[in-house]
């Protein structure tokens, strides 16, 4: 990544214009041509810097409910439990972390009752009762873009 790539990557994390020719506007900000912006984004995707480029929605405003859960999974069952959790499309993030609550996952679904049902189902299917449900009470920050530098 050169300096322009880094600047471009920071800009496109913040958002592209909802406009007929969104990349033309970005090109002007970067003092390069529209086709160069397009080529560079393709390259950043190909090189594995960009996971997805598309709409980012506010789940809450769409009426969905979400939470963060953690569970205590015995060492010898980690892969098996991770596989089960990953099979739910309502579970969008799942990480192993250094804590007695070692598996951390987010659940997002269309209603609170469905959220509880899903957590109960996971407890039932795994036989692991120690699952904590930590819904957010207040959002202080969700950062839009990580500054990758270049300016």
């Amino acid at each position, binding site marked *: 990544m050169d300096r322009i790539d880094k600047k471009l990557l920071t800009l496109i994390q913040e*958002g592209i214009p909802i406009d007929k020719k969104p990349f033309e506007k970005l090109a002007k900000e970067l003092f390069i041509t529209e086709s160069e912006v397009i080529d560079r984004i393709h390259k950043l995707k190909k*090189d*594995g810097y960009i996971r997805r*480029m*598309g*709409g980012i*929605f*506010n789940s809450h405003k769409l009426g969905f409910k979400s939470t963060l859960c953690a569970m205590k999974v015995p060492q010898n069952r980690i892969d098996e439990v991770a596989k089960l959790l990953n099979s739910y499309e309502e579970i969008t993030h799942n990480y192993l972390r250094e804590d007695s609550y070692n598996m951390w996952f987010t659940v997002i679904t269309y209603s609170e009752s469905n959220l509880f049902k899903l957590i109960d189902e996971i407890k039932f299917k795994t036989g692991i009762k120690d699952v904590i449900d930590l819904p957010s009470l207040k959002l202080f*920050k969700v950062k839009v873009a990580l500054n990758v530098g270049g300016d």
Partner: protein
Amino acid sequence: MLDSLDKCIIKKLQEDIPIVEEPYGLLAAELGIEEDELITRIKSYHESGILKRIAAVIYHRQAGFKANAMVVWKVPEASVEEAGNYMGSLSEVSHCYERKICENWEYNLFTMIHGKDKEQCENIIENISNKIGIKDYKILYSTREFKKSSMKYFK
């Protein structure tokens, strides 16, 4: 209220948008509608707040943020607001939430901190701890990523 066309549009936007000169024109053609109508509708989702933005989601690790620490803090109720606002103001903190506690979990403030390495993360965390006067915290590094995906709201 969202109609069936809105749901089709949102479905499209949940995927990757085409990286071409006129991406919305191409999407509109795929949806069988006019580009102007598509742009008007997307702008309305943005104005009402259901669409935060059309943007790139990056792979943090690839972009040089090798250490990503989730730090959980036990903050007295009366200090949550101040601590949360302070942590939220820091550029190294990407997420900061107050979460519900329970019998087995008393850490109520959650932050995600990004750094080039663990040492950098830990310096940032120590500075925060000193600043807000909270010593009771845990750093939960992720050791494996099993899943990271975007929610598909409509199918």
